[in-house]
């Protein structure tokens, strides 16, 4: 104990990705380790694999018994069933008998299975490749002598990177996240801000000790390892103050007006029903962006039309007649979906993503459009298409939506054509905005910024380039001006809208509808109320 108390505190500077304070032990999320054991006899290698399979099976059984989620349990029981089947490891044991080391034998046995799933024509079978990969890596960890990690709550997780599905599967109560990769505008950061999880990026996590006491300052982008007692007290105090402040900001209810009394719409970005709990619909002007990719991620099978319809319907019900803008599947880029997105793309952000992907998977897209057309009957729904680059893409979507409605009517189901709009995030679309037959526009600033600057939002070294520039504000102003003249609505749903320091600059460009993470409602409304600038 004394030893710990006297160790000097270490202060590591990263970049803020989500504000807030977290206090707790550091938990290092392991990468799949290399098996560095010296090569041993055939009998020993055989036993090593037997043991690794058995411990993996026990760990999975424990996980399955703890999860309260039917979907997660189904995924785990499939993996358990695979492990119970001798046929899975039989080729590996044959290779070991021939002199191969256990870890390589295991990989050589599993990889062809993974490939065969990846090549399946049915997307639901393709999605199983991720289960096998998960299983492969779990056994490899055990072969290398490392225990499985489940993430407890109340800890500060340090990792190289984290897929959004893993973020969603973790209990973040009182916890925080430190990543080496990723950026303040990556999707994990968006989720972290929306759920109030403090997060910083750009920290070399390799040299962080597992289990050490730490303080995470998401506001300043700082991680403090082995803090002394006085630092800890200070952070405890700040932590308490912040929760009070957050509650005060949340109470900034009702419609937003500038200092001159001009009304500004403030809507929220959400990924699902869970985030709406505890939020009064009267505090917002609607849902400006519902991201649907999270319905598709980390699942055993893709969501059916009926399942989607039920979720969309409940979002509309929550909004009580306020507009709800649902974006069609925006997979690809940094949002891979097992069995759907292409894993081999060299440059996924410039690849088959958003509407480009949907138009290449018409079965999946049609099911979503049918669900949306049915939901449109039950409330004030707007449908938005992501990553539109040329007018033809939007025309194609409109035709598909019309087809879906005709089809539904023929089946005797109720359906309605909702307003169809587009995300403006590709510079080509922003520059030729007058060519698009869209009922409304929503500016996706995160992608727009990275495409305008040709700087990845996930490259820590380029963070200064991947910031809103005069070029970006110029494009935003261009779109808003055209839309105002053409009598169409424009909102902005990227992180830019949720940054209180950028609110005035956006209002200067004529933007009058913001869509922000629920956690940013208070600060953004407060910033709007302070604005006394260029209202005509």
């Amino acid at each position, binding site marked *: 104990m004394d030893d710990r108390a006297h160790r000097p505190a270490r202060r590591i500077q990263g970049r803020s990705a989500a504000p807030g304070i977290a206090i707790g032990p550091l938990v290092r999320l392991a990468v799949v380790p290399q098996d560095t054991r010296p090569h041993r006899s055939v009998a020993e290698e055989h036993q090593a694999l037997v043991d690794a399979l058995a411990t993996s099976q026990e760990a999975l059984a424990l996980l399955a018994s703890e999860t309260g989620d039917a979907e997660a349990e189904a995924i785990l029981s499939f993996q358990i*069933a695979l492990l*119970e089947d001798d*046929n899975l490891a039989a080729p590996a044991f044959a290779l070991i008998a021939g002199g191969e080391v256990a870890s390589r034998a295991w990989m050589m046995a599993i990889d062809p299975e993974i490939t*065969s799933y990846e090549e*399946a024509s049915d997307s639901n079978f393709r999605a199983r490749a991720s289960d096998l990969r998960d299983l492969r890596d779990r056994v490899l960890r055990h072969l290398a002598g490392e225990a499985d990690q489940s993430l407890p709550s109340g800890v500060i997780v340090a990792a190289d990177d984290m897929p959004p599905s893993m973020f969603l599967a973790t209990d973040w109560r009182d916890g925080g996240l430190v990543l080496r990769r990723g950026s303040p505008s990556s999707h994990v950061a968006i989720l972290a801000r929306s759920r109030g999880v403090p997060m910083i990026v750009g920290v070399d996590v390799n040299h962080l000790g597992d289990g050490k006491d730490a303080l995470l300052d998401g506001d300043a982008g700082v991680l403090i390892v082995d803090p002394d007692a006085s630092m800890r007290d200070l952070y405890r105090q700040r932590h308490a103050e912040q929760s009070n402040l957050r509650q005060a900001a949340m109470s900034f209810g009702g419609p937003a007006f500038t200092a001159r009394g001009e009304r500004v719409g403030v809507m929220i970005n959400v990924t699902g029903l869970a985030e709406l709990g505890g939020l009064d619909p009267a505090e917002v002007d609607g849902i400006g962006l519902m991201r649907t990719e999270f319905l598709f991620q980390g699942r*055993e099978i893709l969501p059916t039309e009926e399942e989607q319809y039920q979720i969309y319907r409940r979002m509309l019900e929550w909004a009580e007649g306020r507009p709800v803008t649902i974006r069609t599947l925006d997979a690809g880029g940094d949002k891979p979906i097992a069995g759907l997105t292409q894993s081999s793309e060299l440059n996924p952000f410039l690849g088959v993503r958003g509407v480009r992907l949907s138009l290449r998977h018409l079965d999946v897209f049609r099911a979503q459009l049918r669900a949306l057309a049915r939901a449109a009957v039950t409330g004030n729904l707007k449908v938005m298409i992501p990553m539109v680059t040329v007018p033809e893409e939007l025309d194609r979507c409109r035709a598909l939506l019309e087809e879906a409605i005709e089809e539904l009517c023929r089946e005797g189901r109720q359906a309605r054509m909702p307003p169809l709009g587009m995300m403006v995030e590709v510079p080509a679309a922003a520059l030729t905005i007058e060519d698009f037959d869209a009922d409304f526009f929503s500016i996706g600033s995160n992608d727009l910024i990275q495409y305008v600057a040709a700087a990845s939002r996930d490259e820590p070294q380029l963070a200064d380039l991947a910031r809103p520039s005069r070029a970006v504000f110029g494009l935003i102003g261009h779109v808003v001006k055209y839309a105002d003249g053409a009598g169409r609505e424009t909102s902005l749903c990227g992180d830019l809208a949720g940054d209180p320091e950028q609110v005035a600059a956006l209002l200067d460009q004529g933007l009058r509808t913001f869509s922000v993470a629920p956690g940013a409602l208070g600060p953004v409304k407060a910033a709007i109320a302070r604005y006394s600038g260029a209202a005509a």
Partner: protein
Amino acid sequence: MNRHQASVLIRHEVGLHARPSVKLTKLAKAFESRIDLGLSPDGPWVDAKSIVKVMATKVPKDSTIYFRAEGSDAKAALEALVTLVDGDFQDGR
């Protein structure tokens, strides 16, 4: 010799997929008989107790699958399997 054969249509929304396969192989393993599954009445056959083999057949929706069983409880095994598939895998958990 106690040999039996049966066929049944897969109606499950996504075919003989992970969750249905787990149920099917679990049920098959509850019987002593050797049980095979095939996509045609003449095979090729795979071990219905192996989820690795069953999943590898990648049976899509609306296809007919065939079972053949050989052993003391072959008849009961086929009845149980056909009931499971015919009931769209909706048996108890």
